[in-house]
């Protein structure tokens, strides 16, 4: 099962290495990991998606907690949290189908952020199913390159 962990860590050198090493050593698979600063400059937030059973999730959380630089761990319930991910895709286009692609991007509230004679780059933000649908629709045109940020998430309310 996939779980999204929101991990607050002290913004110190080597913290990412500690977290990554822990996952590798204990044999837990990271699906995605996004890290960035928070409203407090000395604290970073890592959003980690792991694919583990309930029992292993407990271990992941407890082992993470043992890292001295880890301040807080929240297991985000999809019901009570919001999650987004951004994808950038470079699509092969020509004069004939460029507008079609732009239309698809529009439907997904995407932005065209680069245009050249042979390709355009589309940026879309959303949850995982939306991004998957977006990718599926663009595949027939030819995806030259694609990059995803990994999921970021916050609990709702309060």
């Amino acid at each position, binding site marked *: 099962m996939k779980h999204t962990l929101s991990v607050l860590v002290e913004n110190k050198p080597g913290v990412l290495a500690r977290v990554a090493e822990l996952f590798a050593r204990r044999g837990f698979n990271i699906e995605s990991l996004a890290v960035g600063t928070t409203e407090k400059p000395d604290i970073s937030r890592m959003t980690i998606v792991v694919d583990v059973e309930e029992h292993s999730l407990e271990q992941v959380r407890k082992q993470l907690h043992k890292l001295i*630089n880890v301040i807080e761990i929240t297991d985000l319930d999809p019901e009570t949290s919001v999650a987004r991910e951004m994808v950038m895709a470079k699509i092969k286009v020509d004069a004939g189908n460029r507008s079609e692609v732009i239309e698809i991007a529009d439907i997904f509230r995407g932005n065209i952020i680069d245009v050249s004679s042979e390709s355009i780059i589309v940026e879309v933000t959303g949850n995982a199913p939306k991004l998957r649908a977006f990718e599926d629709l663009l595949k027939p045109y030819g995806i030259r390159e694609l990059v995803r940020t990994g999921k970021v998430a916050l609990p709702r309310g309060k």
Partner: protein
Amino acid sequence: MRLTGARALVKSLEDEGVEVIFGIPGGVMLPVFDALYESRMRKVLTRHEQGAAHAADGYARVTGRVGVCMSTSGPGATNLVTGIANAYMDSVPMVAISGQVATNLIGTDAFQEADTTGITLPIAKHNYLVKDPADIPDVVQEAFYIAHTGRPGPVVIDLPVDVSRAELEYRRREHPVLRGYKPTVKGHKKQIRMAARAILESRSPVIYAGGGVITAGAEGELKKLAAGNKIFVAHTLMGKGAFPESHRLSLGMLGMHGTRCANYAICETDLIVAVGARFDDRITGKLSEFAPKARVIHIDIDPAEISKNVRAHIPIVGDCRQVLKELNAAIRELKDEVQSPDRREWDSLVMDWKEKYPLTYEKGPGLKPQYVVEKIHEITGGNAIICTEVGQNQMWAAQFYPMEKPRRFVSSGGLGTMGFGFPASIGAQLGRPGDLVFDIAGDGSFQMTMQELATAVLEGAPVKVAILNNGYLGMVRQWQQLFYNRTYSCSCLEREQESPDFVALAEAFGAKGIRVTDPDLVEAAIVEAIETDCPVLIDFRVEPEENVYPMVAPGAPLYDMIGDMLYPVEKIHPEKAEEPFL
């Protein structure tokens, strides 16, 4: 106060109350060793950094204080690694300080550069690479705090040479500031009450005591719990000394080379009270058949240990001493309320096992290693500090040197590090100068760190090394004999010629060497060793192919003990009677 980084480090160590530092200097550590020269802290120059780390470890185990070791960068730091990993696996408080190349050279593969924080990341509780000299006082304070609180462990401080040369304004905080580190000390009240009820309602409870009892100084509360409620106690290797082994309720050690009564009791119990233990594979044997009838109360300060290997029905996170104290109180309160079942049947069953299956060995005509350990026990009145190496010697020491008190049995449990015992014994001796310290050693293990004989001699640490010299990597040979068809591949330490001559070796270092081949001379040799003021090495030429029994084969369940007297398995598990051990 303006100080150089090196002086600030030394002052910080002094402020932490450090008495002794084990280590070896080198290029990037010269500023630190220069600053140490005038300090009143004792400096012990070992002959290998691994020795320094193990000595700090041994010191920490017998004193309960934080052990400190030091090395230079690169090879010095990598030499510390085994010792750091060893302390980590056995939860020993240690601060290891390594030099590092100058900050502007880090990452350039400079001379003697190694990524010490990277290397020690998975084998230390925490580590620091200090880049700003102003951080030194805080880092040292935090390192000591982290090392000895919660579940203790080693903390590494990597100190670049320019940082130790630079100046800073020294100021010391009252308390370390660690936002992400707050060990849970107090157990959950409701859980403790549940545990108390479970204990009172149990028909056949067993306490499984680990090293955490000793770390927490919980032996008094443990004794109250056991004796007050008539609960049998089995201990781990690390838990040796947590409960007096002469006590009627002591079942001795459990696990791979544990006693039959301890292992059978675990197989049959309806309630395990695990205290400061972590259900290691050497304890559980085949996990799926571990304690099939038992509910589990698991008390530990490290939440990650709870339900890691064996599911705990009643988990209690907290300091073992505090939790046991509250547990004892809760039991007192509930006693009148709960109707306890009759435990007489359980008591007589277990006592019957205990009487029928004591640890024993065939008293041969030759010199038996078990006999040597028994004699050491007898002559020292069970009061020595016993360090061990790893292998058969370690198991015989555990089996035949019963302990009455904690912090007197020093052995590499989690990592199983050959070469640990001897340097650890030096550290233990310096920490407890008034005590008699023995290293019960194997000929293979001793050769891994024997250069520390020089340290022992020059530092005046009169440790006694008793080598149970079987000419083999004995435990390896035993496994080869039992599970690999007697193919003794690379386990024999002798050829046509014996090497080394341990007695000559001891003498060469300025220690005393004694050789014993005759069982009748064992006693005299031990007495002579004890009466000698300097380090003594006794080369006991024991039976080469003696085995450690009883034994649970790796991967086998605990009731499948092989050894000289096979317990009729069908009595406990009729359906298992036909199954082979492996």
